[in-house]
């Protein structure tokens, strides 16, 4: 079995379209060992995974605008995980009113509200419920070190008293603890025991010629060896999992952040699949992170770039979108991995709930509204996926957390500031956002165009400066303007909303293009936003 197993972990290329033709699935089948878990009734346990994205989002590229529950167009930033559409439940209009500090937004993500500082975060409450039978109740993971001066930015998972739970960032370390630990793996235990025997034997020869001081030291050493051996003997030899851990591949030492995260996602999937744990929280970065994504060719700090309006330049926006896209790719990467593992009757993803998102909406003005939140996986049937839920009113994250707890069988009267669970996750009716109706049309005159419709960014983020106005029944009008126009008409502000726009135009292969704006009117909003909100 040993060599048939060797898989070089692939380096995933950004934007390489369909990623990861994963070898895992075949491999698992080839192993011909029954899936470990729940084999009795063939019902698998449900896992809960959270993935935190730092520094909010750039709303013009993230938000879905228009669209309904079952008929929607995914936003440009969602492109990397569009292929998982059927497994997703995209939530919109989640959050709080007002603005949020980085630290508050980090707390909000899993604790429902930034003021909820005395109770456990939702992942921990769920871990208490589902994590008792596994070797590790839960894993709390991250990529970055601590920010001591803004400690709240470094944690999403909190214990019963609301205290932060230490997290681990090294995939090799996590792997070794899970799979190379003598207490978990019978093979390891055997090796460790013989190692202890041998060391003890060798050290005895030292003892023969030792003075009093040496004897004392060696006595202490032997005592420790003995205690360790005794402890190992006590460990129940019957391992919970029938996977031979020694066949799992230890991740290589990461060089870039991308390696580190990919390796960690690998380890996470293995941990869930082997049922070593059922609950994992993972931070793709600290909120307020000033990481420099040099492996993406970016030299500026992430936090600086995330303030895309006050630090506006086209290249800054490009850089920010590259970083955001990378975050989305990691989400995709996790989902792809979970899908590739067979678990019970379906895939590991079918038996999981993955909560992806942030605690902040707009990364420049820090609004706490329209926070990016996506659920993935059917949770063993508890979620009805493949839908886009845009709530009519702002929904606090506490309601989402209550709904998740309820699904996991935890009865809680209230959580954070919320007292009723969020509706609609399982297909139940919910109060859907109703947009004011508007007409869309386009009027052509020689050299000029006036178009009315919803403005959106190009789906292709490589051309982030290109916008479209969607016109019903017609090809969308392309807007390709200079920086001056973009800036003075504050085009980004109108993204997602219906507008009337006039300008000088040209036509290429039937595609109408506006090259110069002469006027923008917002149908329902503020027509002259000035420099507020990008």
């Amino acid at each position, binding site marked *: 079995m040993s060599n048939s197993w060797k898989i070089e972990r692939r380096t995933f290329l950004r934007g390489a379209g369909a990623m990861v033709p994963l070898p895992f699935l075949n491999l698992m089948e080839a192993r011909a060992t029954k899936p470990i878990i729940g084999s009795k009734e063939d019902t698998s346990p449900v896992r809960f995974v959270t993935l935190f994205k730092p520094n909010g989002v750039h709303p013009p590229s993230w938000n879905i605008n228009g669209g309904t529950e079952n008929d929607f167009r995914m936003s440009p930033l969602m492109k990397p995980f569009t292929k998982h559409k059927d497994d997703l439940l995209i939530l919109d209009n989640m959050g709080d009113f007002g603005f949020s500090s980085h630290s508050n937004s980090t707390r909000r993500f899993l604790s429902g509200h930034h003021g909820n500082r005395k109770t456990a975060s939702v992942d921990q409450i769920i871990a208490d419920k589902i994590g008792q039978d596994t070797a590790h109740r839960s894993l709390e993971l991250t990529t970055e070190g601590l920010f001591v001066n803004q400690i709240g930015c470094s944690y999403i998972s909190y214990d019963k008293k609301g205290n932060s739970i230490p997290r681990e960032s090294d995939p090799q370390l996590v792997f070794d603890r899970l799979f190379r630990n003598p207490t978990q793996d019978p093979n390891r235990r055997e090796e460790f025991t013989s190692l202890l025997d041998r060391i003890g034997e060798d050290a005895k020869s*030292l003892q023969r010629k030792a*003075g009093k001081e040496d004897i004392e030291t060696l006595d202490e050493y032997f005592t420790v060896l003995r205690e360790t051996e005794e402890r190992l003997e006590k460990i129940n030899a019957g391992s919970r999992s029938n996977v031979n851990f020694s066949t799992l591949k230890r991740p290589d030492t990461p060089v870039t952040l991308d390696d580190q995260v990919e390796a960690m996602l690998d380890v996470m999937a293995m941990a869930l699949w082997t049922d070593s744990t059922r609950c994992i929280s993972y931070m793709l970065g600290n909120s307020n992170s*000033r990481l420099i994504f040099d492996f993406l060719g970016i030299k500026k700090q992430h936090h600086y770039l995330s303030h895309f309006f006050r630090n506006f330049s086209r290249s800054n926006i490009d850089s920010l979108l590259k970083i955001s896209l990378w975050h989305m790719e990691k989400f995709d990467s996790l989902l792809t991995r979970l899908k590739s593992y067979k678990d019970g009757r379906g895939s590991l993803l079918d038996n999981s709930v993955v909560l992806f998102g942030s605690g902040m909406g707009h990364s420049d003005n820090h609004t706490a509204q329209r926070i990016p939140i996506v659920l993935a996986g059917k949770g063993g049937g508890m979620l009805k996926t493949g839908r886009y839920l845009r709530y009519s009113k702002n929904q606090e994250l506490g309601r989402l957390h209550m709904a998740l707890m309820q699904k996991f069988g935890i009865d809680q009267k209230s959580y954070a500031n919320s007292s009723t669970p969020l509706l609609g996750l399982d297909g139940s009716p919910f109060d859907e956002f109703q947009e004011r109706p508007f007409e869309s049309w386009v009027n052509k005159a020689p050299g000029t165009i006036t178009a009315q419709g919803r403005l959106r960014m190009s789906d292709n983020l490589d051309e982030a400066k290109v916008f479209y106005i969607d016109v019903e029944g017609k090809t969308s009008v392309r807007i390709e303007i200079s920086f001056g126009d973009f800036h003075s008409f504050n085009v980004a502000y109108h993204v997602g909303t219906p507008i009337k726009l006039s300008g000088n135009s040209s036509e290429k292969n039937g595609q109408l293009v506006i090259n110069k704006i002469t006027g923008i009117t917002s149908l329902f909003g503020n027509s002259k936003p000035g420099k507020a909100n990008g």
Partner: protein
Amino acid sequence: MATLQKKGFLIPRLLAAFFLFVIYPHQLKAKIQFEKNILPILERSCLKCHGGKKVNGEVDFSKIKNQTDADSQYELWETVVEVISAGEMPPEESPQLKEKEKTLLLKWHQEQLNSPVESVPGNFKPRRLSGPEYRNTLRSLFGFDLKVAVAKAQQTVAGEESLVLKLLPKDPPGASGFINDTHAASLSPVILEQYTFITDAAIEKLFAPKQRSQLQYLMGENLPDEWRPEKISQNQARSLIKNFIPKALRRHISKDKININLKALNKLTGIELLNALKFEMKVTMLSPEFLYRGLLMEKFPGEQKSVDAFELAERVSYFLWEDRPDNELMNLASNGSLLKTDILTTQVERMLKEPQAINLAESFGVQWFGISNLDELIKNPISHHSLRNQPVLFLNHLFTKGRPVIDLIDSKTTFVNEGVSGFYGQDRGRMKRYSKPKGIERTTTPFQEFTLEKATWRGGIITMPGILTMNRGPIQRGTWLLRRVLGVRLGEPPADVPPIKPSPRGQKLSFRERFERHRSDTSCARCHEKIDPLGFSLDHYDVKGQFIQNKENLPDASGKLPTGETFKNYSELKEILMTSQKEKIIRNSVERTLSYAMCRKLTRNDQPTVDRITKNIVKENGTWKDLFVEIVNSLPFRETIFTEEIKG
């Protein structure tokens, strides 16, 4: 364990007593005898609270049973004499000492101090590597660091990077105050488990493709590109074992011993050979000989002897580098020439030029001056980086660039970056400026070596912003100066000190005036008359360490030392420190350095060594390098006493 350590002094003491008896028999007769005269007083009046049912204030007289025990506690007696003369002990409610008893105690103490003491090295005791020593040893053995994969931004706090330091519990400071004094930090199953984990990680990494050059180095053989660990040959495995084990164990290893490891490889091939090889390497790295220092040293039970050349190499390299001896030291140890004074001296000079010498400042310097107190205090990582590294770089400069010991107090050289440049007034104009690239909101900036001209209020370690801000008030500053720089021992303040009273109605008193009223009690004054003048002298520096210039109503920074010397402010005090207090400062430097080098608390038997080195440094205005050379050639460093063999 502590008692056993003390018992080790029995033999030298008996030898010494014998020696004294032969030459100065009259002195012995004249002595007040501890067992006969002093012990009964302690048992009667002190033991109840200090070693009987209770052990108050960590003072335990039950452990002191004879003259030998008493000798090893000479610092304790200083405190005893102080509290007894001040009438603080025994406490009021307890039966008091008779005048006769008091006089006897004081006289005995005087005799103790004045009695000649012979220079005797410490007795041998194996010692586990401290966390940083273990980390550095692994690093230089394998040629790579075991790092925790953790993304780092400019706000990220350091310290999580080293896998070793992350996994091992933090070493508590030993009796010497230094963490390399691991005598009391015992091994535990948890620590063993972490060693196992780290060992696995290191060996896994050694065989990873990226570490091929390291593996080749340890194997002593070039490997073709297509080579894979599973393809390892018998010869390759054997030469790896032969090279690795002596390096790991830091000395020549007998053929017989290595043959045990080699035997385990016999007849194996492929993956089985590889696994057996890894197993043997793990056995070595988890053996007590690797984890402890001194177990394999040549032993001469019951004798005082020079340590062998390998032990000397280890001593000097863990002292100056906090690391194992490198090839050059090992070669000089193999042929024995390291034992020669001139060769060892040349090695010290060489070692101070190597990059590992930074550990002298990073470890010894940081611990001596308590610089890690800044870690808790300054939460902003960028300020922390500046304030903490400035004194470390300065100490590194003194230690490795041949600067006089007394430069510690005053020096024109300092190290500055953007984080501390604002503390240097007009001198700032001459500093190289650093401008942040666009898109970088916060960043640490590099340090530059800088010669002070106008900022005469800086210079030396005491007025560095990090040090001043670490010790916020005059009392903390005074205590720090007294303890860490002048080496004066202070007792702990009593527990029941009332708060400092506000100014009485209608009067506006300064903190200093209010504080002086507050501490007028004699028991407070005993320490505070030493602390306060030093502390208040720095009152022209605010809590952040900024020098207050051109301001009216400056606080009173003048003072008078117990010696009678007076000064108007810190700069005048500095003059005093550089002249009349110079010997005291140098003595303290010698004591601290010797204690760190020996990884133990000094005893009275080290005093002749300290006296001699202090004298030489004072006379010659000696440098730190001179001090290190003196130490590595001193008796306690070169020799040890072996206790008698126990037949197991």
